[in-house]
């Protein structure tokens, strides 16, 4: 029983660190109405940058900031491809994602970097809080701290004049242009913020698991979407923006719990991505199927 509880706790703490990535996906997918595949690359980018900086003796906390900045740069490139060169949204993301694979390999110099014995923000925190022995608890506390700060900043930002116009851009571009908003700039800005968060999440995950891998970002977009959808289904579209953001992170934690449970039940870990894809496909398909069957019958 204790083992199950422990695995649940580590699932939740993992889910919260990945939840920061989910916030990024929420910004593009829900607010900007843009399915951005860059995240597969920028998640690994964040991990790669953070790991390389750490083994070169940088402060692990500072390395996360650099990871955030490089992620923003990646988002900006996708945004420029899409707005200035009119490349379709999905393709712009795919191009950045593929390019980032090579870039990440170049940054790391090899396919993976181990952080064994290195200082990470998690080992630093453990030194600061010697009374907490459980590693999962430490990473849970750090994850929650990051999430609370990020949500507070996002809540403020999307309530400002610029944030308001980004939200409107995802809603109705015609209106935004007619009211003097530059929709191209707003999209670039949204992608930039989103990928910054995704890379930050990648850096945190790399430090928490103790290694960065060039393939660690594969399927990030699908995991992000699954978490956003789970959060929405369970917590509903209620209350204000902050509630929605918290429900997205909670969705990510629940996703990890579901994964931990199905693994306990005997699902092979090699089938995880298939399982996740099925969750997302089902979640997107159910409303459509439902509508088909619940059409009011017309009697003539």
């Amino acid at each position, binding site marked *: 029983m204790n083992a199950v509880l422990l695995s649940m706790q580590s699932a939740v703490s993992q889910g919260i660190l990945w939840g920061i990535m989910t916030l990024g996906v929420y910004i593009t997918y829900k607010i900007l109405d843009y399915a951005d595949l860059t995240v597969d690359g920028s998640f690994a980018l964040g991990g790669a940058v953070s790991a390389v900086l750490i083994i070169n003796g940088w402060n692990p906390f500072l390395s996360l900031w650099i990871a955030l900045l490089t992620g923003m740069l990646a988002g900006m490139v996708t945004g420029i491809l899409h707005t200035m060169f009119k490349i379709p949204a999905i393709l712009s993301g795919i191009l950045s994602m593929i390019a980032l694979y090579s870039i990440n390999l170049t940054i790391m110099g090899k396919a993976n970097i181990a952080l064994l014995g290195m200082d990470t923000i998690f080992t630093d925190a453990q030194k600061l809080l010697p009374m907490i022995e459980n590693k999962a608890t430490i990473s849970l506390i750090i994850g929650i701290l990051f999430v609370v700060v990020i949500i507070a900043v996002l809540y403020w*930002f999307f*309530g*400002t*004049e*610029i*944030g*308001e*116009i980004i*939200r*409107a851009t995802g*809603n*109705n571009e*015609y*209106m*935004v*242009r*007619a*009211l*003097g*908003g*530059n*929709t191209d700039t707003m999209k670039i800005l949204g992608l930039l913020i989103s990928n910054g968060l995704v890379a930050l999440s990648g850096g945190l995950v790399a430090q928490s698991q103790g290694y960065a891998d060039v393939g660690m970002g594969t399927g990030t977009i699908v995991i992000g979407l699954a978490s956003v959808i789970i959060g929405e289904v369970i917590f509903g579209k209620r209350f204000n923006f902050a509630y929605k953001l918290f429900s997205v992170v909670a969705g990510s934690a629940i996703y990890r719990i579901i994964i931990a449970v199905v693994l306990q039940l005997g699902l092979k870990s090699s089938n995880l991505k298939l399982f996740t894809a099925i969750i997302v496909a089902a979640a997107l398909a159910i409303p459509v199927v439902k509508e088909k069957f619940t059409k009011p019958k017309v009697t003539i």
Partner: protein
Amino acid sequence: MLYIENLYKIFNIGTINEKRALVDLNLHINKGDFVTVIGGNGAGKSTLLNMIAGVYTPEKGRITLAGQDITKMPEYKRAALLGRVFQDPMRGTAADMEIIENLAIAARRGKKRGLKWGIRKDEVEKYTEYLKMLDLGLENRIHSKVGLLSGGQRQALTLLMATLQKPELLLLDEHTAALDPKTASKVLSITEELVTKENLTTIMITHNMKDALRFGNRLIMMHEGRIIFDVSGEEKKNLKVTDLLEKFDDLSDRMLLAK
């Protein structure tokens, strides 16, 4: 006020689908004019409005508005000078955002947007007062999502948003065409009220000849990318629907002869 000189717009240049939407068009509108525009399908009415708004750039010609050459100015920049209402009620507002948020965005048309809070407290009161003027009960639902409103309500809201910051020129592109007759007449009377109150320079496209005669002090008829009829003042007041129909008949006769 608005000067359009030798304006050309040609779509799909060099293909078999080439369409000369505007041909050597010249138009001068004075401050305070309320111009109604009529014409058959494909006459170039909407193209003209979209050219003024900056949705398309001209092949040739020049557009000057309020002393500024706006011919090549991007759409979002010239929005500072223009209020716009579209034919499709969905286009003018953001459905997933609150009524008050839509108004706050509209109030910042042409102003620099920064990191200040999106809706100031005093704005809420101000907009609630404005909404009362529409007489649609929207002042009691300022935090409702715009997507919950009917087409007519959305169009009325768009009108209010377009005039919240007084525009140099108000562009109405068949803004009542998608509404039922009763709603359309309500939206038209709101239009008239706003235009008169603020003395707005306005261009209104309409398919309804009665409306074209009833509203405004000037009427323009377009055909094949040109202005073929332009009356104002007393002459317009004395114009009747039958006169306009005659004009249209002349056109179709001429078109038949041309073939």
